[in-house]
């Protein structure tokens, strides 16, 4: 951890989510339900300079570790984030997120005539194409590009 990240205080134990596109920061917060965390301190750096991305955002969550399933949800909005698991101020594990084959309950279908937009029910998508990634709604069967999807 150096350069601008130092502006966001280091944590002793917890999870760091780095290389978040700034435009997606608040969606990452929502997906991990960070607003509901009461016990841990959370540091957010928004619009930091980044050599790789121009601008990026970073979140550091103290004393909190997520399951892979929870973290993989991030792939829907920020597929290139870097995750660091911190123990005693040291990075003990680095990982990337992978897109699950089925995405349930988090993405909104773009088709206004889809049943999922007209009935209180969870959505469900499957990955129908890689590069560019396309999702197919399991209900109305319409394909939509991952870049344009909105969260429910």
């Amino acid at each position, binding site marked *: 951890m150096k350069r601008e990240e130092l502006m966001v205080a280091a944590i002793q134990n917890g999870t760091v989510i780095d290389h978040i596109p700034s435009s997606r920061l608040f969606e990452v917060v929502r997906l991990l339900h960070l607003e509901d965390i009461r016990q841990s301190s959370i540091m957010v750096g928004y619009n930091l300079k980044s050599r790789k991305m121009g601008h990026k955002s970073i979140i550091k969550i103290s004393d909190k570790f997520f399951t892979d399933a929870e973290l993989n949800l991030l792939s829907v909005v920020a597929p290139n984030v870097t995750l660091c698991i911190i123990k005693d101020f040291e990075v003990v594990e680095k990982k990337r997120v992978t897109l699950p084959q089925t995405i349930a309950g988090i993405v909104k279908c773009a088709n206004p*005539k889809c*049943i999922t937009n007209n*009935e209180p*029910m969870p959505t469900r998508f499957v990955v129908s194409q890689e590069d560019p990634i396309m999702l197919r*709604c399991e*209900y*109305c*069967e319409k*394909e939509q590009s991952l870049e344009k999807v909105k969260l429910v």
Partner: protein
Amino acid sequence: MKENNSLVTIANLSREDIMHLLHQAEKFEREPNRTILSDKVVATLFFEPSTRTRLSFETAANRLGARVIGFTDPKVTSSTKGETLKDTIMMVSNYADVIVMRHYLEGAARYAAEISPVPVINAGDGANQHPTQTLLDLYSIYKTQGTLDNLHIYLVGDLKYGRTVHSLIMAMRHFNPTFHFIAPKELAMPEEYKIYCQNRNIPFVEEEEFNADIIANADILYMTRVQRERFTDLMEYERVKDVYILKASMLKDAKPTMKVLHPLPRVNEIAYDVDDDPHAYYFQQARNGLYARQAIICNTLGITV
């Protein structure tokens, strides 16, 4: 077929599933009146009016001896009071052994099939799927040609929005067809279905012309309606509106076994002089819907005749 034997889409039926249903339909055609469902109740839930499909389903159920409950117009139901689809399905499944549902929202049939304790038959969900129409189309092709294999199938008219032609392509993938897509540019077959064919080595030819020479090699001529409201450019509509009309004079070089199909209702895309031509088959095609739906209702209930 999954989700408690429901029929939601034709896309996941295997060749064997389709042939089984067609052979069942053949038996119902030979003997349509069988009281094998006299202890069953069939619910027909039409959240969107569709007289033709509803009458066909209700006749199928009645000829099998089943009792029919349901509604033909959602205005009389609690959905106008804000009841969810789930609640309606859960309520009706207390009474019926199978639910036939037409809905104006896409994906409604899959959702109903997932939550319903009794099987659901999709009688059309918005612009998405209408598998019983596809099955009656397949039955009509099978019956008139004696096979589904290696046929030249010509799809004419609105290939962009025509749900029936899209489902037909997917269902025919097991049978080595050759397709001809005949449509104006604005209503041409969408890329995704051309890619679907390419990925499965299904040959197809695209044409804009529609005349006697073009269709001389056809086994099946599947007509659809070119609707004015589908055009963004009305000049274009005026230019093509009379191009995709089938007249009896165009059938002079057609194969003797060739049949003209149409999902109905027809407006003007088939001239009335075709009705008396031996190639015309669209009214018999509609009757085949009865046998196809008898086969489907029995199949969802696990009954083989």
